[in-house]
């Protein structure tokens, strides 16, 4: 082991995060590979190792002949300090080698608040921050992940963006880069060629011009780059790589279990949900294959918990049959199946009861809004009746804790909607009184509200975020009216969500802000411990950028959005139609009921697998 690292480790928290060596970590002979890839997650080990996409692409790249893909995570503050003091550059976990010498540095970015961590990791690696400062073909700095559906705030730092699901495009890109290195292309020539691959967005090949009011005037591609880059998807989930023999961390991570992905996409069409739009269309993995992967993954990893993962697991058509099929194995091996999210309908409840076995701790529902009117606006097609029925069943079955998640600041929200949240909580409490068989045990009802952040590529991409002052007023209003005893009310602090809203719909002018925030010490802004609003406000001020312009402004219907060169496959016409339906309070049925014509079906040749 590296001597510098060995001396640092006794002084840092959870040193096992920084040494690698886990079961199934891929070790290759350096002499036998010609492509070294540093796969970076701009957050801690515990978060990054819980990301299924990271595990899939790690497997995909390491399956390639001559390619060694290694993992890199953001060090926690104490480790970063020690590394900088010891002059130790950011290294990859598998080999311990500094990543500045690698051929590619690839970031998986799921969250806007991780942007500053990207800059910090590049700096820790000893790599110049800006794409323009890096002349060489290596290391090539690339990024993908959900937050890259608007990559503009980080456009100056990243050489190229891979859009959508990476199983196929990553291989094509790595091969092209290998060819470019072999044939001695310039970085510019490589980027021009990469821009011709479907799903690759090269920010430096697009000129952005602005109106006097700061909005985008035009996006002009150069050197043959496409006007619109459409995301890539896996067409057949049964042929898609699944990481059966995946790394088993030796230290506890957030999702410390087998993650079995049943399908991609979501039929529901909640209008606030970016994932619901950008992961379209729905593609199911066949039941037998899911069952086989479950067995193989449990046998290899030794995990005794499996989460049936997807955006809305109860919408997997053969879910009951899959659970039946897995039951004997789960029984004999003491394996528990769990559902990550629960729709408040009867089907989910029955299934939940079955899976829970003896463990009846708590249930979580996300009604998102306090009144039916507002739930119709956001197209969260769950009724209060559904929710209360589910709660009755749960309480009657012995559950004594329910968590309810809501958002404050959804478009068209009024005080009545806010107070509706308190009413929902009171009714859930009432349901407990009516249904609980043993009231001595008491009940815990927790209501949590977050501060709504409008996201690009959603029906609400035109909408303003409510101001922080208004958000705080609504929190206060709800606090005062949350009078039911035994209901605990938690609310998010509005500061992070405000910055998230700025970045989510930001443009390239935010690049300077990100760098300024990073220089002031913003290294791990996704963590409250390290986030500082002051730092951001100072940086906006110094860069002459008004954050309200991004967070609080209503966009015109035809305004050019900074991310308009990127398509998730869902048409802008459809999003606008959904926006108008939202304002009118008209709901849209789920994709299984009938096709609403979002456009994503074109990605799979016309017919979705609903």
């Amino acid at each position, binding site marked *: 082991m590296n001597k510098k690292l060995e001396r640092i480790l006794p002084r840092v928290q959870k040193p*096992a995060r920084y040494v690698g*060596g886990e079961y199934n970590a891929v070790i290759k002979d350096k002499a036998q590979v010609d492509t070294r890839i540093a796969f970076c997650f701009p957050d801690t080990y515990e978060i990054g190792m819980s990301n299924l996409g990271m595990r899939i692409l790690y497997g995909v790249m390491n399956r390639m002949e001559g390619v060694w893909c290694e993992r890199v995570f953001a060090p926690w503050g104490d480790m970063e300090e020690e590394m900088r003091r010891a002059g130790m550059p950011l290294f990859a976990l598998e080999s311990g080698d500094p990543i500045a010498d690698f051929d590619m540095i690839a970031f998986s970015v799921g969250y806007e608040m991780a942007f500053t961590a990207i800059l910090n990791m590049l700096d820790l690696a000893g790599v110049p921050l800006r794409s323009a400062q890096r002349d060489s073909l290596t290391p090539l700095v690339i990024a993908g992940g959900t937050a890259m559906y608007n990559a503009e705030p980080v456009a100056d730092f990243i050489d190229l963006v891979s859009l959508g699901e990476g199983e196929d495009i990553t291989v094509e890109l790595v091969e092209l880069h290998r060819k470019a290195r072999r044939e001695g292309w310039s970085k510019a020539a490589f980027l021009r060629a990469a821009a011709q691959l479907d799903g690759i967005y090269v920010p430096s090949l697009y000129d952005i011009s602005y109106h006097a009011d700061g909005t985008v005037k035009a996006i002009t591609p150069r050197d043959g780059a496409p006007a619109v880059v459409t995301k890539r998807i896996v067409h057949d989930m049964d042929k898609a790589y699944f990481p059966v023999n995946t790394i*088993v961390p030796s230290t506890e991570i957030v999702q410390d279990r087998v993650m079995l992905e049943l399908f991609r996409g979501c039929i529901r069409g909640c209008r606030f949900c970016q994932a619901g739009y950008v992961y379209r269309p729905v593609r199911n993995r066949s039941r037998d294959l899911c069952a086989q992967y479950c067995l193989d993954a449990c046998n290899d990893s030794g995990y005794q918990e499996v989460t049936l993962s997807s955006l809305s697991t109860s919408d997997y058509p053969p879910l009951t049959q899959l659970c039946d099929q897995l039951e004997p194995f789960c029984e004999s091996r003491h394996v528990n199946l769990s559902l990550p999210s629960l729709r408040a309908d009867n089907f989910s409840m029955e299934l939940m009861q079955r899976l829970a076995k003896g463990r009846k701790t708590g249930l979580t529902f996300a009604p998102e809004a306090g009144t039916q009117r507002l739930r119709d606006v956001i197209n969260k097609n769950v009724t209060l009746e559904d929710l209360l029925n589910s709660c009755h069943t749960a309480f009657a079955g012995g559950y004594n804790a329910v968590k309810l998640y809501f958002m404050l600041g959804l478009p068209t929200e009024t005080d009545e909607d806010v107070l509706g949240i308190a009413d929902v909580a009171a009714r859930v409490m009432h349901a407990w009184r009516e249904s609980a068989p043993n009231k001595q045990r008491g009940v815990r009802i927790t209501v949590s509200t977050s501060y709504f952040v409008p996201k690009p590529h959603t029906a609400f991409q035109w909408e303003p975020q409510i101001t922080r002052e208004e958000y705080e007023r609504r929190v206060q209003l709800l606090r005062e009216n949350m009078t039911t005893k035994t209901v605990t009310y938690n609310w998010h602090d509005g500061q992070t969500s405000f910055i998230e809203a700025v970045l989510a719909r930001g443009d390239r002018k935010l690049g300077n802000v990100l760098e300024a925030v990073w220089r002031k010490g913003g290294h791990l802004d996704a963590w409250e411990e390290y986030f500082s609003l002051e730092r951001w406000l100072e940086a906006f001020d110094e860069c002459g950028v008004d954050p309200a312009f991004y967070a609080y402004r209503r966009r015109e219907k035809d305004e050019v959005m900074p991310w308009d060169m990127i398509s998730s496959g869902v048409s802008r016409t459809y999003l606008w139609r959904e926006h108008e339906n939202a304002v009118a309070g008209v709901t849209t049925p789920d994709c299984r009921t009938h096709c609403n014509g979002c456009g994503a079906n074109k990605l799979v040749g016309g017919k979705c697998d609903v």
Partner: protein
Amino acid sequence: MSKLRLLFVKEAQASYISHLDLMRTFQRCFPRTELDIKHTQGYHPHPIISIVLPLPVGQSSDCELLDFEVTQDSDGSGIAEKLNTGMPTGIRVLACYEARRPIRELDSLRADVTLEYDCGVPENAAARLTALLARKELIIQKRTKRKEMADVDIAPMIRNAVVTADGHNVFIDITVQAQNPGLNPQLIEKAIAAYLPELTPDFVRVRRRAILDGNGQDFR
């Protein structure tokens, strides 16, 4: 039903795996053995396994022991090989056998403590450290379970120490009391800082070499 014991090595990257995480790592590996581990009763059954003398994070060991119970009759043969197919780098099970000797017969442990001096070993270091470790009283400050600092005399817990040196390292082959209470050999660093601060090393490395019974024989 059988009570089994594992003898294993913990080194390299695995020396940073904490006690709790190590338990989890073993739990995940047990299904490979097809043995049915005895679980506790109740709503949250968990396997009955225990690691004897948990090793402090960062230290290596040639001789860790883990006890567990299985519902079948087994003498442990073939188990080590099966477990080794699923272990992280740095953990290697050497043997699995029936646990016959009670843990209370474990008396002392022998460790190699290496003191690294980047600018070379100070003059007479070996002789002075030998004298230090032979003192009748060796008081260090140690954090108690209540998180307060307390003075502890570690001299009675040191059974034997042989100190040698080369250009940049001092090697202490030390035998210390293993339990009730046990002495972490790493604490020698504190004794040096307290009594011979000029001999404070740049880094201390500890590797457990043997666990011994009252007669100085390997405890298995």
